[in-house]
């Protein structure tokens, strides 16, 4: 059974600081997604990482994928309060021609002033 684990589960950080969220998964996969969820809202797509070594950046967020280590990171640079949300990674697995996403446990990020 595929396990997708994120750490930390909860992160409180001050504005202006840097931090990294880790996503580890237990089976081979070549595609990984990062989503953001605000309280009471649906999921917003942040990044789709399509191959080993992929790196994508948007604003203060940068995501990377190491398929050999089965690890993805979401790095936050100079955090601001607006980044407070829950962040999920999700891993693609395949069964025949079908594919599906399995979600990580989520990391609740709180950026304090």
């Amino acid at each position: 059974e595929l396990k997708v684990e994120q750490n930390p589960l909860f992160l409180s950080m001050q504005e202006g600081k840097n931090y990294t969220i880790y996503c580890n998964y237990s089976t081979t996969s070549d595609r990984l997604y990062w989503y953001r969820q605000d309280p009471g809202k649906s999921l917003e797509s942040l990044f789709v990482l399509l191959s080993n070594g992929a790196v994508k950046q948007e604003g203060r967020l940068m995501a990377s994928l190491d398929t050999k280590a089965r690890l993805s990171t979401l790095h936050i640079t100079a955090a601001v309060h607006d980044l407070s949300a829950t962040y999920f990674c999700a891993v693609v697995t395949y069964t025949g021609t079908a594919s599906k996403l399995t979600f990580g446990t989520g990391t609740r990020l709180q950026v304090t002033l």
Partner: protein
Amino acid sequence: SAVISQKPSRDICQRGTSLTIQCQVDSQVTMMFWYRQQPGQSLTLIATANQGSEATYESGFVIDKFPISRPNLTFSTLTVSNMSPEDSSIYLCSVRTGSGYEQYFGPGTRLTVT
């Protein structure tokens, strides 16, 4: 991208009743999925809705409890049958577009069973 709407947005239902949730997409999509998110938890895939055939259910979810229809490439329904308080969750429709990579989520249906 894809714009997804769900109806209802929220509902409070009595134990033993059923609720049908609708998912409408503004364009044809290759794949549609239904997820459940229990309070404070991550997302769990219920099933893949297949156009013109029976849905593919994940372990722990059965058709009698969660019947799904997908009559065309833009619409799907999920029914939560014979509800109990344990079914109180957010139910999210999700779609994958023709490119095969991006996967989008609807606004969700917040269900409370009393």
